[in-house]
């Protein structure tokens, strides 16, 4: 007989979870603005970690003093990869002052590059951005008569994601538009830490409703 359920829980404390983040790491952080952002994990990173020189992969760098905006104020971000820095004027100011390096990516390319990173795809051609400033220096190819740009995958050392509900194995379910980049980022890092609004016993999630299967998730943290 197979043991049908792994019983070991992946639930740990936030401080313990973020201890895996080292200086110089690339860290993916889910959320569209603050919606769906793993705010408790970000707070733990802000309060209980010294890791600096971080590369942050996130659609936005939080808002002033909120979410990743706190980490920015600590001067611990060296580089941002994002589609919209503009939602945090302090991030824009930090880029203009040369304090952080910014890589701006069209949002769909950003999402697909993370998906590719998690799926073992070495890159993809997209028509988006061809002939614009954001495609300068990128390899091009004409496919079906249309200019395409080669985009490389994005991966990270650690991903911090938020899900409304998880079981103790790490199966994740997202709520409404708080899903956004979270399921993609969960697949694309060496270590994935999920923050969950609610943690339920194994078997309590309908298998069909699981959006992120537990094999992507290394650690689970309860949102306070």
């Amino acid at each position, binding site marked *: 007989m197979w043991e049908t359920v792994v019983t070991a829980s992946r639930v740990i404390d936030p401080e313990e979870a973020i201890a895996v983040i080292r200086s110089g790491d690339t860290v993916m952080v889910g959320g569209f603005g603050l919606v769906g952002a793993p705010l408790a994990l970000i707070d733990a990173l802000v309060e209980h970690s010294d890791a600096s020189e971080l590369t942050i992969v996130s659609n936005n760098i939080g808002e002033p003093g909120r979410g990743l905006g706190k980490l920015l104020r600590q001067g611990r971000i060296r580089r941002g990869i994002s589609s919209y820095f*503009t939602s945090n004027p302090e991030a824009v100011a930090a880029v*203009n002052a040369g304090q952080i390096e910014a890589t701006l990516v069209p*949002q*769909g390319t950003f999402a697909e590059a993370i998906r590719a990173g998690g799926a073992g795809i070495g890159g993809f051609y997209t028509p988006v951005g061809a002939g*614009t400033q*954001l495609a300068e220096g990128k390899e091009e190819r004409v496919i079906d008569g249309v200019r395409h740009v080669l985009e490389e995958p994005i991966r990270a050392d650690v991903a911090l994601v938020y899900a409304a509900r998880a079981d103790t194995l790490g199966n994740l379910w997202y709520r*409404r*538009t708080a899903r956004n980049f979270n399921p*993609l980022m969960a697949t694309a890092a060496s270590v994935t830490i999920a923050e969950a609004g609610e943690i339920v016993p194994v078997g309590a999630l309908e298998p069909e409703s699981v959006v992120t299967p537990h094999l992507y998730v290394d650690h689970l943290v309860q949102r306070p």
Partner: protein
Amino acid sequence: MTADVRARIAERAARELRPGEIVNLGIGIPNLIPGFLGAGSKVVLHTENGLLGVGPRPGEGELDPDLIDAAKQPVTALPGASYFDSAESFAMIRGGHVDVAVLGALEVSGRGDIANWAVPGRDVLGVGGAMDLVVGARRVIVTMTATSSRGEPKVVADCSYPLTASGAADVVVTELAVFRLRDGELHLTELLDGAVLDDVAAVTTAPFVVSLEETHAS
């Protein structure tokens, strides 16, 4: 620019949308369009942060912190709605499954080039989904005032601002006129709100063909 002018542009653009179409609305004037969609419009709104079937703004007590549109404003979801991740959302856009994108612009050229994401000399740090939308949507409707706040023409021979995409616009709606791109050529198809040809010519540096063909009572 007065709120009234913006509303009139939105109202005219709303009439470009056909029943059953999947439509993505950008920030600014396009966001006013839902106010002009009648009950029979049957348009389905897509927002790139992961919702098909966007409903009206929530009333008091209906606010859900997990439910926003791409402008990060609270919305509701209509019966039949679905949620999906950002990669799938942009696959819908790039894959041609979204019928119409309506968006604002800084400039549109006579060839349909669109510049709407960056002003040189200012911070060039936010592009969002603009490039994906103008490349991917089957029809691209640009809504913008005919001139900038400094009075400079916005329908121009060549864009001076960084491009969002080349040859991407299909329709341009300003407070004065409706233009349509046909085989890479700009056609003036409608004069709005009593504007005459000279009014349009005075603020349009792009060459255009006059092909007046339709009038809508408003």
